[in-house]
């Protein structure tokens, strides 16, 4: 599965968190890197516990609190990069990069009451900015091909389709030049 193709060109840079903005519903949203605290974990569990199951993608988030906790334990590991969009002390959205060999797999979730307000775009840009700042070179994701909103979002921030032959589209982006041997 490591025969994934990535663009040779480095994508536009984005600002790393923390940052804040006003969404289309006039809510002040703050985007911050996950601080590893139990408070943030519990706020994430609460968001995913209330997540609309029709917005699930390929089995995540899982549908039961114990499974949500197992899944979060995996992706909040210190090897992973996590960014959270906050409306006060409530989680509006969460985006994550999970290491996979020499690349990272990306996923982003915006709670249904915060969708279509411009939060997803800001959140994913913040995650890519955080990734670049942390030395991430390559990122990939899969998305269900009927999910036009998500595919459009990924294209907007610079992802390109790398595999269209499966049920899900695979998309990739390059955040940094490869290490020396291919440079020049």
């Amino acid at each position, binding site marked *: *599965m490591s025969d994934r193709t990535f663009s040779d060109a480095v994508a536009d840079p984005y600002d790393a968190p923390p940052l804040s903005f006003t969404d289309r519903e006039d809510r002040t949203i703050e985007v911050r890197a996950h601080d590893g605290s139990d408070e943030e974990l519990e706020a994430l569990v609460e968001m995913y516990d209330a997540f609309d199951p029709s917005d699930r*993608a*390929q*089995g*995540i988030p*899982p549908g039961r609190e114990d499974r949500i906790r197992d*899944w979060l334990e*995996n*992706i909040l590991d210190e090897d992973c990069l996590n960014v959270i969009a906050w409306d006060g002390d409530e989680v509006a959205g969460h985006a*994550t990069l*999970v*290491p*996979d060999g020499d690349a990272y*797999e*990306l*996923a982003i979730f915006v709670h249904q009451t915060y969708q279509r307000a411009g939060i997803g775009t800001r959140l994913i840009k913040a995650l890519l900015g955080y990734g670049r700042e942390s030395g991430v070179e390559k990122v990939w994701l*899969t998305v269900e091909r009927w999910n036009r909103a998500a595919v459009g979002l990924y294209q907007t921030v610079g992802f390109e389709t790398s595999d269209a032959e*499966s*049920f*899900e589209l695979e998309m990739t982006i390059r955040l940094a030049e490869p290490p020396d041997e291919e440079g020049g």
Partner: protein
Amino acid sequence: MKVLLGIGGSDDSMRALETTVERTAEVGDDLTVAIVDNPSGERSREDMEARVTELLDERGVDAAVRALDGDPGSALVDLAENEGFDQLVLGGGETSPMGKIQIGNIAEFVLLNSHVTVTLVR
């Protein structure tokens, strides 16, 4: 029920094998295990055959074991349709580092082409 289990050496097909043998022991299905060539499978045919025999012995289950050549998806669908199977069972996919379920090429082909009921084991 006449059940055809297809395994190709990936981890999910090994889990499907265990679950299906377990179920066969409980309900007495007529089980055939077909071993196919999955290019992304990590186990050799010999390893798979040995594991199948070991599990069948362990559970006291009687099943036919067959090796299929050629394209795995179409070979499984052909066999299931031509020999009157009621159900074709496959591994239910691997999960990505993120935890996303990913269905393999063989399962995709079988789901879209089989006229026999398909079960993906999770």
